[in-house]
């Protein structure tokens, strides 16, 4: 019994450490700029003078647009990248075909490359495709992920060949083998990677900022950044905090609502390396 209480106390303390910056963020979002400055000392000072002004100020910005854009891009990105990565991973794990080795080698070489190296070349390419200020420039290159494909290949190696073979004898096409046999057996990988891919796109910063020009097309991080401006000129922290809070909510909801699927998937088999 004592051990059990001690365990919970320890967990509560650790959880408190984990969420303190979060609480600070929530407090900050409801404060006037003056109080916010005072609260660099204490998050809980002036709690009697909370304000919704920061959230009201967001209404003056095309904030709703940014939110919807972010939801659209992140969702579509995740669906595409998970589908294509699992397909590619299936091909690389379960088939022998000429060209497989070179593909694998090039992939492994590029997984480590920092994306910043690609920026000038990519921008030029997008210009020639007339994709500047178009979501295509974000969705199409983002539809594949070397990292994702490698993950799916690794976990699909575990799909027993016998199972596929039986499927073939049952008359299933290769596409159906992928859909009905391979995918269900790597559910854990899908759950884990979905979360990873969604968050990465949701918080993606550099590339959308380079590509998007129309303010109505901005995503949340880009929009927020255009509000903050230069660090030395930064003065509307409260708004930024409010916006950050609002921008975290959808992902938090997604995670909370689906955490069973994300994690039960994970725990049913773990990522089988």
């Amino acid at each position: 019994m004592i051990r059990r209480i001690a365990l919970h106390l320890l967990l509560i303390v650790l959880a408190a450490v984990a969420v303190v910056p979060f609480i600070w963020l929530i407090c900050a979002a409801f404060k006037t700029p003056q109080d916010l400055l005072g609260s660099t000392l204490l998050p809980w000072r002036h709690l009697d003078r909370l304000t919704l002004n920061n959230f009201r100020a967001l209404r003056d910005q095309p904030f709703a647009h940014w939110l919807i854009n972010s939801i659209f891009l992140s969702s579509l990105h995740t669906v595409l990248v998970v589908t294509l990565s699992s397909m590619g991973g299936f091909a690389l794990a379960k088939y022998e075909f000429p060209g497989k080795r070179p593909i694998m080698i090039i992939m492994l070489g590029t997984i480590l490359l920092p994306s910043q190296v690609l920026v000038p070349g990519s921008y030029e390419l997008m210009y020639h495709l007339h994709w500047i200020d178009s979501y295509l420039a974000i969705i199409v290159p983002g539809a594949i992920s070397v990292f994702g494909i490698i993950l799916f290949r690794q976990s699909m190696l575990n799909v027993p060949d016998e199972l596929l073979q039986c499927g073939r004898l049952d008359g299933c096409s290769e596409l159906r083998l992928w859909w009905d046999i391979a995918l269900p057996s790597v559910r854990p990988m899908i759950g884990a990677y979905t979360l990873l891919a969604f968050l990465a796109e949701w918080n993606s910063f550099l590339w959308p900022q380079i590509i998007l020009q129309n303010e109505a097309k901005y995503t949340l991080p880009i929009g927020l950044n255009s509000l903050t401006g230069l660090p030395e000129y930064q003065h509307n922290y409260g708004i930024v905090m409010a916006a950050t809070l609002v921008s975290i909510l959808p992902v938090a909801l997604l995670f909370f609502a689906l955490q069973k699927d994300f994690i039960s998937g994970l725990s049913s088999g773990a990522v089988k390396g």
Partner: protein
Amino acid sequence: MQCNSYRICHPSPPTRQCPDPVQFSLGKPILVLLFAAAISAIAVWKQPPLPRADLVLWSFDETHARTFRDRLPDGHGRIMPSLVNQFERRLGLRVRISLIGEMGENIRLASAFMAQAGPQSPDLCEIEIHSIGQFLRPPNDDIGLLPLNDFLRQSGWGGRIMASRFAPWSKIDPRTGRRIIYGIPADVHPVTITYRKDLFDEAGINLDQAKTWREFQDMCLAFQKYWATHGHRDRKAIALSTGGPDEIVEMLLQRHINLIDHAQKLHFTDPELLDTAIFYAQLIAGPRAIGADVSPGIGWTEDLARGNVCAVCTPDWKAAYLRQFSPQLAGKVRMMPMPKFESSDAPTSTSGGTMIGICRSCPHPRQAWKLLEFLYLSPEAAKARLAAGDDVLPAIPEYWNQPIYHQRDPFFADGAGGQRIGNLYINLAEQIPERFVTPYTYQAELALVAVLHRAEEYIADHGTAEGLTQPCAAWLAEAQDDMQRRIDFGKFEP
């Protein structure tokens, strides 16, 4: 049955029929996201496309974008049409102002200027002083911005804008020795020192009388001594960064030293720089320290209000923040010119700044110049700036006669209805030193800060700055050599 290659296993098609799929194999999360994407796609689809525009301006500065795009009060209770609107009506051209994060704008411009292809860059752009260096790196004929000398001469604006403010945005033509100007300055940004008059008064010190930095330091030490015995042992006299270059660069500018000048010459081994570095190091370390770091962002206003630090170097854009974020300081602070090292120094410095320029690829530079003139130089622009609440001093002296720059400001105490800080800034603006920016300036500042750190450590170890001259000179020489190597390596010899 074990098989590794499908070819061996099915030479012929099976006879049975595959059962219908029973599940969504990608799982519920993906299904949910698929719905989310479909629904949001409708909203995204319905968004209006970007209207076509004859002239496009990229800006990173939210205040400027507001000044250009917003309908603003004209001071007589009416709302004026926005600057852009007025311009569009006059010339029948459509204009678009795009507000872009600074990092994003810089990367886009760098990529666009690099990639010959023209139309991907805007017609005009605003650039911040810390970012201009990289764009001036190419030889003059390959810089992505258009030289503005001819426009300035023809329009007569050349003589009406403060000459010293062209410095950051211009380059010397190596053949003719002529200064080629690539940007029009928005501001002057002279620097003063704002201090807590109430606290200094209480300590019996009149900081206004400090004309040299040494006097300033002595007074501040006396000030700290007073407060140490009155319950504020941590109280520091002035905000000076220990990890950043801001204040020491301002002091060097006072002495007319740029770390790298417009001829790409390095000045690390300048004896005055050595002197300044050692002086600065003992301002922030050792027994005679009077400076401390402030909180990040605009936290300095709070630090000043609490009396953690009691003076701050204030370019004009910082003064506005003080009023906005520490209203409780009204009547308790006062502004003074910066103390000097020698009589030939400037009593002020300059910090920050923004320019507007025309891109070389712009197909209609004349129209672009017209827009630039209207947004930056015209009387309408001067009015709109004030209406947008931007009381930073413009770089055009003839607009300085606006009453707002001369009225008493009760926020700043002088015993009689408030100090005329506008007058002070204007007075100092005429004396601001020239500041140059090169592609290597940021790296040079980092190198200088590294030397400062070693000097600080020396003072902390020895308890005094004595004997620091020799080693510090050696460190600076080292830094100069390294920077020189970098500049030589990066230099372009076609």
